[in-house]
């Protein structure tokens, strides 16, 4: 079953199911292919009925497909998760310290020589309009999605940080809801940690960063670009699960540096905005003047401290892939700790020595643009054509700051249903971290799976699917949501 050269999550080297996968493996072993297909049918029907779909662009009007969730879950045992939880908390704590240091602090990391000044000033995610805007608790990244992969050595590594508008949490919760209905017997045999408190946790985190002056019952709203946005389903899901208004830019007005919703009973003040609109569309006064999605005067209101925007403006400097290379150093600098989860080995292409080495070995490495996410613009050396490599080389030489290179990390594998049998497919993991008064890692996260044999591309737009992710063990009562 396993693929040579890659870490098999479910089975050890002798092919036996690992301890924490044994129950699930045995359960699936007892099913006939017809029974599995029957479960798949049930799953599709349930997603269709609830409208849990995603849009594949390129067709005439974009095709709606049901969300592809594979039935075989990813399982992480309690001790392994405890390490990841600490590592993710450590990483996001350091990144928040870094962001606050850059925008609202002394820029100690620059002055102490941890990062060069030009790393900041040349980052397209560095937003000068956010300079000296302070954020309660310094929680500039309130919701983070950190992408992890597990190499052949079984070690988890961070592949990229998503500190702006990480998406996918709604699928984590919908996957779990579907799995509980499809496999109730398996759940009853295992202590799987719950994820459905996410709405309450998110609301608590958002309320914890409300401006101090707004009292103890702050009003929260989710700001969406509108129904035509591909993630609108998630925006509506989050507003519903928090019980707050889902607003568009035109529903808000800034009056004397205070943000208010336009309601049938007049203006109603808003204290915290969970925005799912990119920085550059937020406020036409200071950003794109033609943006109709945003709210004129919103940045001034933020600066005046009457409203908190989460995630903060300018977080892109924190998930810039050239900055990523410095994150282990930032963890040491701000926290005085050794990083718990390592980075993938990374080359900074504006450093002449590293650039020279990378250009030598271009066909062995992965090259990525620094400011993109979701796999956009990546060139995978071993599978790239000569023309693609030549183009990458040209782009690197023309603008080395815009690119990094990494050693190829083999994605670990897990069984996935391939029509009539289970077969090994590659997976990654995006855990979500909330950083209000204290960091809270949602148990598990979104496991994405490349449903095509041998493929390393897990994006849902390119034939990728997802898996429910189970974290075992009883939750620590102290960390449980109230």
């Amino acid at each position, binding site marked *: 079953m396993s693929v040579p050269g890659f870490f098999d999550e479910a089975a050890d080297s002798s092919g036996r199911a690992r301890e924490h996968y044994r129950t699930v493996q045995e359960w699936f072993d007892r099913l006939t292919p017809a029974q599995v297909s029957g479960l798949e049918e049930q799953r599709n029907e349930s997603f269709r009925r609830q409208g849990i779909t995603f849009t594949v662009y390129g067709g005439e009007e974009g095709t709606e497909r049901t969300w592809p969730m594979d039935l075989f879950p990813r399982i992480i045992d309690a001790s392994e998760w405890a390490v990841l939880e600490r590592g993710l908390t450590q990483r996001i704590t350091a990144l928040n310290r870094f962001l606050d240091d850059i925008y609202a602090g002394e820029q100690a990391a620059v002055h102490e020589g941890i990062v060069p000044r030009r790393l900041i000033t040349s980052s397209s995610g560095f937003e000068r309009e956010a300079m000296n805007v302070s954020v309660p608790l310094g929680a500039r990244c309130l919701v983070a999605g950190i992408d992890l992969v597990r190499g052949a050595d079984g070690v988890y590594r961070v592949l990229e940080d998503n500190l702006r508008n990480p998406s996918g949490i709604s699928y984590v919760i919908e996957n779990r809801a579907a799995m509980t209905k499809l496999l109730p017997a398996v759940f009853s045999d295992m202590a799987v940690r719950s994820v459905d408190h996410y709405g309450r946790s998110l609301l608590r985190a958002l309320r914890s960063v409300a401006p101090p002056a707004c009292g103890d019952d702050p009003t929260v709203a989710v700001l969406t670009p509108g*129904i035509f946005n591909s993630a609108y389903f998630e925006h*509506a899901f989050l507003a519903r699960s928090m019980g707050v208004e889902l607003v568009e830019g035109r529903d808000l007005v800034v009056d004397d540096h205070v943000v208010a*919703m336009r*309601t*049938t009973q007049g*203006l109603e003040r808003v204290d915290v905005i969970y925005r799912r609109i990119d920085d550059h569309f937020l406020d036409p006064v200071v950003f794109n003047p*033609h943006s*109709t999605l945003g709210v*004129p005067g919103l940045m001034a209101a933020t600066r005046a401290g009457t409203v908190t925007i989460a995630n903060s403006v300018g977080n892109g400097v924190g998930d810039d892939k050239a900055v990523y290379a410095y994150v282990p150093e930032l963890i040491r600098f701000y926290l005085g700790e050794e990083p718990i989860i390592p980075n993938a080995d990374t080359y900074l292409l504006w450093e002449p020595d590293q650039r020279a080495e990378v250009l030598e070995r271009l066909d062995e490495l992965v090259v990525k643009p620094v400011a993109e996410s979701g796999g956009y613009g990546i060139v995978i050396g071993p599978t790239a054509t000569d023309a693609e490599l030549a183009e990458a080389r040209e782009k690197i030489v023309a603008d080395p700051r815009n690119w990094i290179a990494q050693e190829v990390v083999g994605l670990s594998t897990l069984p996935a249903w391939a029509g009539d049998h289970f077969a090994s497919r590659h997976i990654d993991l995006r855990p979500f971290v909330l950083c209000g008064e204290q960091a809270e890692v949602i148990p598990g996260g979104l496991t994405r799976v490349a449903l095509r044999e041998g493929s390393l591309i897990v994006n849902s737009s390119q034939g990728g699917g997802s898996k429910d992710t189970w974290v075992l063990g009883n939750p620590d009562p102290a960390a449980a949501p109230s």
Partner: protein
Amino acid sequence: MLARHAEDMFWAGRYLERAEDTARMVRATLLSTVAESPAQALHRMHDLTRTLRLEAPAPAEGAQTIAESLTSSPPMLRSQAGLDIDVQAAATRLVCSSAVAGSVVFCIGRARENFRSLRDQIPSELWEEINRFHLQLGHADFPGAMEQDPFRTLDSIRVSCQTLNGVLSTSMARGEAYRFLALGQNLERSLMTCRLIQARYPEMDGSSYDEMALTLRSVSALEAYQRTMHSSPLASDVARFLLLSDAFPRSVLFCLRLSESHVGSMAANGQPPPLRRLGQLRSGLEFADFDEMATDLPTHLRALETGVREAADLVGDHFFRNAEAFTLHSQAVKPGAPS
């Protein structure tokens, strides 16, 4: 609730009502043309488009307005359903053309768009039902079915509209969202009834039972009228019934009373302008001397229609005004370059 959502609800209500009214009136009109000469039938369709105020807003090049299509081909050709083909084509357009603002297809499409952005505010049964209806209307065979068997098709549209109303009234909480939707429906309905009387009153003047029956049937009022009035209909009785009936849910007075109560329950305090206007209109009808009105009915009806339109605008000004979308313009002053 958000002003934008309230406005979407209000218009969803108006569109739903409009779709049902259009279907009912087209059906009643087609029915009465069956035994008529083509000239008479065409005249009726002209009447109907006038009542509904239905014209494609800006006909595309080469496209005909409904009025043009009514006179384009030689008369005497009959369709499968036994109707004059021009009349039937016009009816099909009034129902099926998405280019005609006010057609059934157009209205249901708009209502669905409005509901789409309100999915969190409406029961999922309502969303599923309007989706089903929308798919039915959008089916490639639908215009063909309308050509083949217009009466059955129009009946199925009416049933779908009534199903939607049933889902609405049985599954939707009586909060602001519901009230704005019901307000939109009732204002639209009162306007439609008002217009129907305006358009049909001259036709009924001293003429046959058939004309009276068509008028009443257009708003499903024939049976209710007969039970209430017990007399062979007079034009003035029909007008009085459609305007002032206490019991018939499509009479103008009935609709205005409901509208007033919806606005009243949403007005936080005092008497906002839309409530005052609706109250004036309602009491004007309640205490009207119909015989005096009847001496110059067209003038009274025009004033009433204008009044209802004003009330609808005042609802917008009061509750949605601050949801209006305005275009943003950027402005910047450059050094050394005064304009």
